[in-house]
């Protein structure tokens, strides 16, 4: 518990900044919606008929003129990218930063088991991801209500759940990688998050690359698919769960035998 509390104390400022930034972007976009809606009827058909560009961002299957459609696309890009970057950053730094900042020698010469340290760090990463997502969800739902639109509870909650799971998966993969690093790996974390995002866009562009949707967690966090089906894709979630567990197991395995620098 001491270590979890310490970890959260160390990271609350960064968490606050990320939460407020992502939340603010979503609120600003939602408050622009009433203005856009009046002009949307003509624009919507243009958006949905831009060929590859439309399918890349799901504009062909979601109606940009409705709140659900607008939110699915807009939220998809803000919380999708922002949340993924945040999750990757805290995952990749969790174990590696101790050695990068020279504090590993302090921490690891206290009577803690290596597994105990991994658990505390993992729990604190998951708590941070949870806090960010619950806060952003509250801000989003509140904003929808504030602009006088009926809140599509099920759709918004499903979408946010998918993004939460995406971030958990990405954080756990990066956490596993983190156990191997001793210099910090911001580049690796951000690179991985962005690469997975673009893999999903490629998969959206051509049906031949559909298999890619199973590899990237963005595959199960696709607004258009979630809204049309009314549920998350269990199969893709299962693949994501395997990646999540693999990253976590890797962290325990490696950190228990790691030579600390």
């Amino acid at each position, binding site marked *: 518990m001491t270590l979890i509390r310490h970890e959260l104390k160390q990271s609350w400022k960064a968490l606050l900044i990320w939460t407020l930034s992502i939340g603010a972007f979503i609120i600003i976009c939602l408050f622009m919606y009433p203005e856009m809606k009046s002009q949307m009827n003509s624009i919507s058909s243009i958006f949905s008929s831009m060929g590859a560009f439309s399918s890349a961002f799901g504009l062909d299957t979601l109606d940009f003129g409705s709140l659900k459609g607008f939110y699915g696309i807009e939220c998809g890009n803000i919380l999708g990218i922002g949340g993924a970057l945040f999750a990757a950053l805290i995952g990749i730094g969790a174990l590696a930063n101790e050695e990068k900042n020279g504090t590993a020698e302090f921490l690891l010469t*206290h009577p803690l088991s290596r597994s105990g340290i991994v658990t505390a760090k993992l729990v604190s990463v998951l708590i941070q991801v949870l806090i960010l997502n619950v806060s952003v969800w509250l801000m989003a739902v509140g904003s929808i209500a504030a602009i006088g639109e009926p809140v599509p509870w099920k759709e918004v909650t499903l979408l946010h759940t998918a993004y939460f799971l995406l971030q958990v998966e990405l954080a756990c993969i990066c956490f596993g990688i983190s156990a191997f690093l001793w210099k910090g790996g911001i580049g690796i974390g951000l690179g991985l998050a962005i690469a997975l995002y673009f893999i999903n866009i490629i998969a959206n562009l051509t049906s031949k690359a559909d298999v890619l949707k199973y590899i990237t967690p963005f595959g199960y966090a696709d607004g258009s698919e979630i809204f049309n089906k009314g549920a998350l894709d269990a199969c893709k979630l299962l693949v994501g769960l395997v990646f999540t567990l693999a990253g976590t197991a890797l962290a325990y395995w490696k950190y228990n035998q790691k030579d600390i620098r």
Partner: protein
Amino acid sequence: MESKAIIAENLTKFYGRARGIDGLDLKVAPGDFFGFIGPNGAGKSTTIRTLLGLISPTSGKAQVLGLDIEKNSREILRRVGYLPSGSSFYNGMRVRDILKLSADLRRKNCDASAAELCERLQLDRSRKVEDLSFGNRKKVGIVCALQHDPELLILDEPTGGLDPLMQHEFFSILQEKNQKGTTVFLSSHILSEIQRYCTRAAVIREGKIIACDSVDRLAKTGARRVTLRGNLQQDFLPGIRDWTEADGIVSFLYNGETNKLVRALAGMDIHELTITEPDLEEIVLHFYEKGGEQA
């Protein structure tokens, strides 16, 4: 293995191909004030980090306080206080927060001893650690190592960055702890402090222990430091080394019968003469140069 504070047998650590320590044997008895001497890169820190479980040995075995370093690392860490050679802490934290964190991680309340140690070391607990000088950060490390009153203190180059007054206070604290039964194991390349404070010492060179004995016996090798003003040649007698000559003053180490030295000098033109025991520094330097042959 018998009951020792530290015992290492054939302990070896290679980083890939690079040698850390190579077949190291070491025994430290409970209650010792033990010095671990060696130049940079000899393997002092590697030895300490292996004993504490930060790195795992390539081969060999070791026990600390009778506990296996690979199987019981957590229990060892509970009973040991460790001061790393570098002092890095979490940025943004104040000294008192660091001390509290360290105590909490040990599930102990150390407020009283922390306050006393900070007072004696003149450490301001309200400062942020990143604003502290290297010497003051070192003090934070010292308090973290000492405040929970461990049975064994392992200190890696403890005096770096401390001014002479603080070094003196620090060693006074260590001596008080030692008198109450705490075993002290400190590494250093400053021989004078080991000669002054330690009762036993080991010399490490290229990953191996090349000498281990009481400091008195290590310093007593039979060799003598001879300094004189006069005119003579280096080869006037066998057993002479470390020959220096400046401004007519000749200085050398002599290892042999004193009688022979006196007789040889009697026939020469000598104005001043002193014969003293060499200090530990000279002896250890000799160990390093000669690759560990007995001086």
